């Protein structure tokens, strides 16, 4: 889908991150889950129409703490990528994740989400099955859970398709991950009528972990220095300390903290009434 001649254009930092986040060799949700958690049992299906391949989810132990784990999965080869729908989640995937999250709420388990998607699946069946409603419902319900919700953007955080797993008490990004309202290509194609402007637009859109941390949109950046085991170790450490922090809070405090986190984005704008 990358339709850009890299030689022709100035390579900027943001665009480098976009390319890193999309690298086919990059670590995926499943390998991280298997490294951090044990006794991981995958659970399947949305109890409606199917089992979305792009969503891996289930129950697991983090040391001796039960957790619900959900992740968007891509592959490391073209055939794997195709199998996992390139990480593009269908409505049944969002509903599967919601089912697992409700289950976590029932049993008081923290929810850990791994985000890695270019965006929600764009297709005829996805629209027939209510893609917009499925994403909206996740946002609505995730706001209300009284268990801790944590989201880790490990690669691509593509728009509403990512946010549908990203309404969390703590949002973390890997150093080379990106998070954006629109893909740089789509934005360039709409605003400049030229998708080759994507590298420049990537800079304008402010998609890097550093920029988003400065804006206060995300809470923490995890360094990608060292080998993958070191990186996964840092992710685990970050999850452990967040769960420790949340263990001091009441369920309603956890919920209110999450709602307030989003409520305050833009609330400094002044309005007047007649």
């Amino acid at each position: 889908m990358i339709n850009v001649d890299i030689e022709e254009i100035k390579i900027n930092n943001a665009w480098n991150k976009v390319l890193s986040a999309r690298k086919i060799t990059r670590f995926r949700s499943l390998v991280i889950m298997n490294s951090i958690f044990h006794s991981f049992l995958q659970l399947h299906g949305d109890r409606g129409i199917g089992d979305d391949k792009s969503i891996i989810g289930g129950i697991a132990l983090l040391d001796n703490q039960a957790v619900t784990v959900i992740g968007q999965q891509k592959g490391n080869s073209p055939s794997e990528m195709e199998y996992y729908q390139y990480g593009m989640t269908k409505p049944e995937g969002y509903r599967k994740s919601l089912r697992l999250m409700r289950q976590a709420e029932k049993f008081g388990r923290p929810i850990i989400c791994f985000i890695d998607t270019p965006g929600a699946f764009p297709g005829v069946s996805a629209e027939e099955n209510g893609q917009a409603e499925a994403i909206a419902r996740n946002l609505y319900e995730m706001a209300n859970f009284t268990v801790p919700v944590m989201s880790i953007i490990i690669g691509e955080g593509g728009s509403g398709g990512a946010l549908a797993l990203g309404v969390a008490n703590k949002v973390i990004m890997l150093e080379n991950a990106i998070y954006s309202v629109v893909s740089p290509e789509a934005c360039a194609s709409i605003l400049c009528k030229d998708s080759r402007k994507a590298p420049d637009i990537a800079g304008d859109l402010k998609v890097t972990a550093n920029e988003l941390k400065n804006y206060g949109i995300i809470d923490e950046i995890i360094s990608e220095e060292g080998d993958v085991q070191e990186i996964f170790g840092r992710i685990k450490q970050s999850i452990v300390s967040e769960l420790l922090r949340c263990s001091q809070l009441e369920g309603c405090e956890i919920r209110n903290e999450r709602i307030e986190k989003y409520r305050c984005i833009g609330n400094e704008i002044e309005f007047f009434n007649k």
Partner: protein
Amino acid sequence: MSQKLFVKCKTCGTIIEKKKFKENYYVCSSCGNYKTLDYKRRLAMIMDKDTFRETNMHTDFYNPIEFPGYIEKHNSIVSTVDLDEAIITGRGTIGGQNVMIGIMDTRYMMGSMGVVVGEKVTRLFEDAQNYKLSVVLFCASGGARMQEGIFSLMQMAKTAAAVSKFSQAGGLYISILTNPTTGGVSASFAFLGDIILAEPGALIGFAGKRVIEQTIKEKLPNNFQTSEFLFEYGYIDLIVERKQLKEVISKILAIHSQENNLTYKPII
């Protein structure tokens, strides 16, 4: 032909007398196409006369990621139309019943949602909760506003949480999907109504048609992403003709009104 007395339907090209077009709720008498309404026409059709009071009127232009060209675009729009954002909100009565109302207007950047729209929608629900009123929200939007980057995306979470809080407090939210309701607006507050109505023939969906055609190489059905398509798949409660909308909304409000819910004594 006099410019003042006639209009041309953008879909079928039929020349219609302006007065008749207005009397027909800006629906083409020939092909039935619905003209997208600006907020003033929508207000006039829905609210009881002279009852609307605007709330949370916005003052300053907000450019959170200092996106190139954004302020120029804003300035060029505000110099030609009578609004400075993609939604107006307020309070008034419909069929004699007090409501909080929001009307999105596509003349401002395709009705897209940035921080100001997200904030106004959020406050609409918060105000409604404070005043114990229902929310009637006319959606019309291309989605999240690219020029505000991640801040626009966050408005989806913020507005969905606002609907959620309002709903848990027992508030009634009627969402009316009009042409177009797509992207980040359809995937947040638009599809979270207790009752979801739509005007006939509106474009409603998540992904853009071109994106679907290009990435998936699928042939799109004829009525793809229309009100009728979504109705068929069970995502809309009712498709309501424009001339019936006020009556239907009034009826829903009446059924939810206090006197119809608190005074009821079951017959044993």
